[in-house]
């Protein structure tokens, strides 16, 4: 399969998509972002259902779009497999007819059988879409898209049409299918959990722009800026007021550091399960317990700092936690503290001005969001 390069700009009633994305030959790339950030538009542009104002899409050495020489390959001629948000099955056709729709007549029977087997749809061939469960519909939509052997598989919010209680199961099914594919997969979603274990690479989209893209673990561990961290589900944010060579101060208190941090750091952050209870000592933060919740294997405690900022810590279900209302000292281990700046998109990229791209900052070698001190890879 081929490497896919997407570099498009599109403006529509005030909404701007401005996206520069490289999709490797194989593996799952997930685009994460809040609703309305332009994720679905990106998919539609790649599928040929929207025309970009400017830019190009190339698949290997084939050019799908190049606004420079007015080349625009129609959706029919691109080899894309698209799974729509609500699956968009043909309601008046059976499962087998749906899967066979995009296939040349001679090979149809044989290929349909192959994909019916591969996606465990035996015994459902003759059913109509309205007779299927959400999970079955998804598998049919996948089979239909994959049967044409596309250059890329596009998935639009694959679980939004499914009950919460079924998502876990579907996620695993999808994972099993997707891992065996030869072609690259691009998933668009606003649901963190979906991508956490499905995606090899993650891109975070904010207001039509890719703020951050990289290997899944890297992105999750080093979001770089506050906006992206929030989208990735980070929860503890301490606003920074001043930075000296050894300490960071905010309305919430002070933390001493072992190593200098970038001067334009706007936020400190730490994962809930990295925070520890401690007795009063230098480096601890004085807090009041607001809330304790049990979440199965995990117990979660919400604390209020002196300026009202809240910190959430998590511990194992068998460790005791103080009662709400009591005063506790929290230790934020320095090696787990991460620094974030405000959104890097302060400078709006001029359409067409490709020299001073902010997107260049959003590759894996992102210079922000490194941990304060080096540490061995946790996991």
């Amino acid at each position, binding site marked *: 399969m081929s490497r896919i390069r997407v570099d498009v700009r599109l403006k529509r009633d005030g909404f701007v998509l401005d996206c520069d994305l490289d999709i490797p030959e194989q593996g799952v790339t997930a685009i994460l972002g809040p609703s309305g950030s332009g994720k679905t538009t990106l998919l539609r542009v790649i*599928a*040929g*259902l929207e025309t970009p104002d400017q830019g190009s899409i190339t698949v290997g050495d084939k050019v799908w779009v190049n606004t420079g020489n007015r080349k625009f390959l*129609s*959706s*029919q*001629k*691109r080899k*894309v*497999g*698209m799974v*729509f*948000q*609500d699956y*968009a*099955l*043909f*309601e*008046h056709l059976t499962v087998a007819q749906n899967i066979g*729709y*995009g296939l040349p007549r001679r090979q149809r029977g044989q290929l349909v059988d192959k994909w019916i087997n591969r996606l465990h749809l035996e015994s459902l061939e003759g059913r109509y879409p309205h007779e299927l469960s959400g999970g079955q519909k998804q598998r049919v939509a996948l089979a*239909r*898209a994959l049967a*044409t052997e596309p250059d890329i598989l596009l998935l639009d919010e694959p679980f939004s049409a499914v009950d919460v209680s079924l998502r876990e199961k579907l996620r695993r099914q999808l994972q099993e299918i997707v891992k065996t594919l030869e072609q690259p997969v691009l998933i668009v979603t606003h649901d963190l959990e979906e991508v956490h274990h499905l995606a090899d690479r993650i891109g975070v989209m904010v207001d039509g722009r890719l703020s951050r893209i990289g290997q899944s673990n890297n992105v999750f561990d080093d979001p770089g800026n506050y906006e992206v961290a929030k989208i990735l589900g980070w929860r503890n944010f301490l606003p920074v007021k001043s930075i000296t060579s050894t300490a960071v101060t905010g309305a919430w208190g002070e933390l001493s550091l072992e190593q200098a941090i970038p001067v334009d750091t706007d936020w400190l952050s730490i994962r809930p399960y990295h925070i520890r209870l401690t007795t009063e000592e230098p480096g601890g933060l004085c807090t009041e317990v607001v809330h304790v919740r049990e979440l199965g294997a995990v117990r979660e405690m919400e604390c209020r700092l002196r300026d009202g900022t809240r910190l959430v810590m998590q511990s194992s279900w068998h460790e005791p936690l103080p009662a709400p209302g009591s005063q506790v000292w929290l230790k934020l281990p320095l090696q787990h503290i991460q620094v974030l700046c405000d959104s890097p998109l302060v400078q709006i990229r001029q359409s067409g001005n490709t020299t001073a791209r902010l997107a260049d900052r959003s590759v894996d070698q992102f210079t922000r969001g490194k941990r304060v001190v080096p540490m061995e890879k946790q996991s």
Partner: protein
Amino acid sequence: MIEVANDNILDLAPVWLSLKLSAVTVVILLIVGLPMAWWLAFTRSRLKVTIEAVTALPLVLPPTVLGFYLLVFMGPNGPAGQLWHVLAGHSLAFSFTGLVIASCLYSLPFVVQPLQAAFESLDRKAVEAAWTLGASMVRTFVTIVLPQIRRGLLIAIVLGFAHTMGEFGVVLMVGGNIPGETQVVSIAIYEQVEMLNYQSAEKLSAGLLVFSFLILLLVYSINRQWGRGLKA
């Protein structure tokens, strides 16, 4: 101008003429109406509202007004009338061809509006899915769009046909009342009544009433079975 066919025996020629007129009109209107409805359903053009209003005009315009303009346009001194006279050797007004033109204009909204509604409620995702699967425009239309708009199509055909059957004002002005050529059934009834020939009028009226009612019953039943209201 009103020529009198004076017989008490029920003359079925006007009925056949009406049926023929309706059939021809519906076929023409489908050919014109499908692309027009498609355009109206999906355009973002500013002209949309204006075109919609023009299309709906026969719904509210007095048939005599429409008839008057058609008469002027198609009459011996009108541009179309003169052209037609050169080509065909006779006047366009007071001919079957003239009736067809008038009927098409008069029944246009009854065909275009249900089709437009059907196109607007089309599952566009399914159409796009067909495209991404490589289906051509024609194949997509036949295999994906047509099955979805079948209800709107049926309603358009039935309403267009029935409304042409019932046409009176325009026909009277444009077609006049020439037996065998332009005397359609609604005019025949009028003439019978004018001649105080109530028995003939009664028979024709009863037949048309039953016909119209059965057609509507069919439309609304199919409508209910296939989904939500006619509303088109």
